C-alpha cells in the first residue's frame, strides 16, 4: 500500500471583505502543491480570491465530549445581549 501525501485543510476567501472559510481538505506533497490542488478542487467556478492551506496535523480542536464544560460559562450570561434590557418603546435610535 502506498504512503499517502500529507493532508491539508483548505480555507477560501470567497471575495475580498469576507473571512477565509474552511471548505474541505486534500492531500498534497507540500504547501505549494496544496495551494495549486486547492485551486483546482475548490475554486473551479471562481469561488475564491484567496486560499489558505494548513497541515491538518497542525490543527488542535476542542473535544466535543467536553463541550458542556467548555461553553457553560456563557450559558447564564444573558445580560450580554441587548434584548436583556427592558426599555420603553418610546425610546428611539437605540
Amino acid at each position, binding site marked *: *500500500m502506498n504512503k499517502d501525501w500529507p493532508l491539508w485543510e483548505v480555507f477560501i476567501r470567497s471575495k475580498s471583505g469576507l473571512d477565509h472559510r474552511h471548505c474541505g481538505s486534500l492531500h498534497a*506533497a*507540500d504547501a505549494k502543491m496544496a495551494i495549486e490542488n486547492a485551486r483546482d478542487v475548490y475554486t473551479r467556478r471562481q469561488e475564491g480570491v484567496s486560499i489558505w492551506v494548513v497541515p491538518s496535523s497542525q490543527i488542535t480542536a476542542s473535544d466535543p465530549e467536553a463541550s458542556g464544560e467548555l461553553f457553560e460559562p456563557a450559558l447564564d450570561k444573558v445580560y450580554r445581549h441587548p434584548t436583556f434590557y427592558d426599555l420603553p418603546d418610546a425610546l428611539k435610535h437605540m
Partner: protein
Amino acid sequence: MELYNEKLEAEFQSKIDSGQNIEAKDWMPEKYRKTHIRQISQHAHSEIIGMLPEGNWITRAPSLKRKITLLAKVQDEGGHGLYLYSAAETLGISRAELNEQLNSGRAKYSSIFNYPAVTWADMGAVGWLVDGAAIMNQVMLTRTSYGPYARAMVRICKEESFHQRQGYEIMLTLSKGTEVQKRMAQDALNRWWWPSLMMFGPRDEESVHTEQAMKWKIKLKSNDELRQQFVDQTVPQAELLGLTIPDPKLKWNAERGHYDFGDIDWEEFKRVVAGKGPCSYERLKTRNEAWDKGAWVREAAMAFAEKQQEKSLKEAS
C-alpha cells in the same frame, strides 16, 4: 461499559431526531461509522470510475464546444470524488486504504458505469439520465445526518446541474437533427433507460439497509420513492425531445398522480452488481493502469517535498 454505550447511543439518536448533524469528532456508534465509510467511499469510487466512460469520448467529441464542456464535466467528477474521499477520511480511514479497496475490486461503485458508452449520443443520455438519477439521490443527501458528507453534497449538487443540462442539450441537438442523429438519440435512451432506473437500488422490500439508514437519516427517501420521482420528472423531458421511453407499460395513473411503469430486470441488476457487467473488467483494469502509471509521479513529488524541507531546515540552523 454496555450501559455507558446505551446512554451514548440514546443521546446520539436524539441528536439525529432533533435534526442536528453529527460531526467528525462526535461520538457515534461503530456501525454508523462503518456504514458511512462504506457509503461515502462507494459514492467517491463511483465519481472516479464515472470519469472513464466519458473520458473515452473527450478526444472524439464532435465540436470544440462539446469537447471543453465534456472535459469540464469529467474534471468536476474528479473533484467530486476528492470531496467525498475527504469526507470519508474524517471517519478514520486513510486515502491509501480507500484506493486499495477500489483498485483491488473489493469496494463497489455504481453499477451504471459498467455499461459501455458506444456512441456520441451516450454522452447525452448519460448526462441527462445518469446524472439526473444521481442528482435525485444527492439532493436528498444534502440533508443527511453526517456533517462532512452533507456539506460535500451541497457543493456537488451545485455543480451537477450543469452536467445534466449539458447532457440534455446534446440529446436535444441530436433529436432535432437528421434521421440518423435522431435514431442515435433514441438508441441511447433505449440502452440507458433501464440501467438508470436500477441506479436507485433494489425494491424497498428487498433493500436490506433501508430501515437503519432512515433511522440514522443517512437516507431520507426510499429507493422506490426516488425511482418514482425520477420517472415522473423524466417522462415529460423525453416527450419534449420527441423520443420514446422503451417501456410499453409506461402510463400516467391519474388516481395515483404518478406514472406506472414496467418491471425492472432484477436478474440483470444482480449480475451487474456482482461485477459481471459488460465493462466491469475493463473499468477496473483502466483504473489500475492509471494508478500504477502515476505511482512514480506521486513518489517523486513526495521525495522532492521532503528534500526541500530538509534543505530549509539546514539553512535555518
